[in-house]
């Protein structure tokens, strides 16, 4: 049968044989001269598919933001033009030729950016309260991120198409699965931010919120709250970003202030944050270690490191593992359940790493959206 099949494919005495023979020759000629180009078009088509999805996500983000602003903000005019302007907003990184002092320059720029975002939202949605304003800010930031991703990918797609450079297209195609994961994560974040649902990144804040429940709280700069509670025979200062609006606060400033208030007499600091899990690890796994567990641009981490170095305070970290998608999506049950496990770990660390009567700091880092205190 195989011999017959080979005969058919290489030229039998019937019409199909002739057609297949011509098709084979054409196939070889075309692949000899246009193989790379065909490969290029196949890759471009794959990128096109992803780009269509990115466009859909971007448009959905924009629509969502406009709709929510109209619903909550009750602005007089149509906010569409203002939202479109916002989506093109950019933050220029500080110059790092002379890196000394760059942290403070970056902090200043981030402060200006935050203030500008807040003002923009207040103009677009004058009727929104503080919680809604913060949620809207987060929604717009997610929409901005989606717009940016779409534009960058479109740029390289068009550039690759114009130049027909295999290397530009190949690089784009190779990195695209990771970028798509990130874009999908921001798309899920949109709904969470719009409705004010707790997100995976808020795991640290939720730990702190559970610990400070039923105790008196006070506000500390910037946008954080602290509660001083008895904990395992120690005095614990529990810190988190003020909720339930979408807000990460400045945990660096908050921790620094509490240390200064106690004149450096802090026996231990425990920081709880969400950390990116590796593939193969389960979401909600709890791990512990040493160091300042604060994500983001690094300004807050730097500040805490400077202060603990000054007073020689040991810093421990408890992290709840999750992937990039879970971090900005509505909180998964596994992550919610991991909060109790993390609290047990904190109790153990406190018992082992400090003495009764000591003062300690427990800082829950992360976005407090959907999490009260």
């Amino acid at each position, binding site marked *: 049968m195989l011999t017959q099949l080979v005969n058919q494919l290489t030229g039998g005495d019937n019409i*199909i044989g002739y057609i297949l023979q011509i098709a084979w020759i054409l196939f070889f000629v075309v692949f000899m001269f246009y193989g790379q180009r065909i490969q290029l078009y196949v890759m471009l088509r794959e990128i096109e598919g992803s780009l*269509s999805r990115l466009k859909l996500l971007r448009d959905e983000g924009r629509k969502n933001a406009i709709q929510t602003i109209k619903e909550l903000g009750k602005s007089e005019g149509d906010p569409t033009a203002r939202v479109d302007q916002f989506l093109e907003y950019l933050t220029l990184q500080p110059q790092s030729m002379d890196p000394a002092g760059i942290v403070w320059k970056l902090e200043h720029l981030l402060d200006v950016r935050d203030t500008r975002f807040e003002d923009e939202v207040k103009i677009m949605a004058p009727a929104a309260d503080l919680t809604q304003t913060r949620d809207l800010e987060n929604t717009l930031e997610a929409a901005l991120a989606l717009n940016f991703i779409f534009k960058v990918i479109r740029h390289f797609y068009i550039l690759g198409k114009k130049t027909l450079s295999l290397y530009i297209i190949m690089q784009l195609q190779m990195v695209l699965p990771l970028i798509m994961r990130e874009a999908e994560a921001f798309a899920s974040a949109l709904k969470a931010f719009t*409705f004010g649902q707790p997100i995976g990144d808020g795991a640290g804040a939720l730990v702190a919120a559970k610990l400070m429940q039923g105790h008196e709280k006070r506000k500390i700069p910037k946008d954080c709250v602290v509660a001083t509670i008895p904990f395992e025979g120690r005095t614990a200062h529990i810190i988190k970003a003020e909720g339930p609006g979408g807000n990460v606060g400045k945990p660096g400033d908050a921790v620094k202030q509490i240390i200064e208030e106690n004149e450096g007499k802090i026996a231990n600091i425990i920081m709880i944050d969400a950390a990116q899990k590796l593939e193969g690890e389960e979401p909600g796994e709890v791990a512990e270690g040493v160091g300042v567990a604060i994500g983001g641009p690094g300004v807050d981490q730097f500040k805490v490191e400077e202060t603990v170095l000054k007073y020689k305070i040991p810093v421990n970290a408890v992290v709840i593992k999750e992937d990039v998608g879970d971090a900005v*999506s*509505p909180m998964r049950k596994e992550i919610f359940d991991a909060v109790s496990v993390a609290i047990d770990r904190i109790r153990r660390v406190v018992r082992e790493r400090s003495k009764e009567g000591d003062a300690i700091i427990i800082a829950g880092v992360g976005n407090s959206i959907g999490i009260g205190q």
Partner: protein
Amino acid sequence: MSNEVETPRKRISYLFLAIILVTLALSAVALYQALIEFDNARDGTSLLLIGGSGFVLSAYMLLQTRRRTMRLEIKEQPVITTILCQKCGFKNVRDFQRGDYIFKQIDPCPKCNEKMSVASIYREVEQKH
């Protein structure tokens, strides 16, 4: 934001469609030839194989284009709010509503009339095996 900038849309390439149609036509001819061979009491198995595989291949390609079109949607994720009475332990589980947040004090408990609060807000993810 300009919408007239050239961006690829959700569409099936004509070239791709033409390739599928040619494959389909060739497969049909091969199957027809196989029938003739069998009719004349000759062995047409190889033609049947070529025609059959061509048919399966083109059907698969068509299905793939359909799948690509269907993927263009954003899935909604159901989020659950659990309201708990700290005094008597009465629990109410419902869908998330805008304005819910963890530790929010809401309606009095229907059993003991004590204030209830939101104990948890989360989404359940189906595990893929």
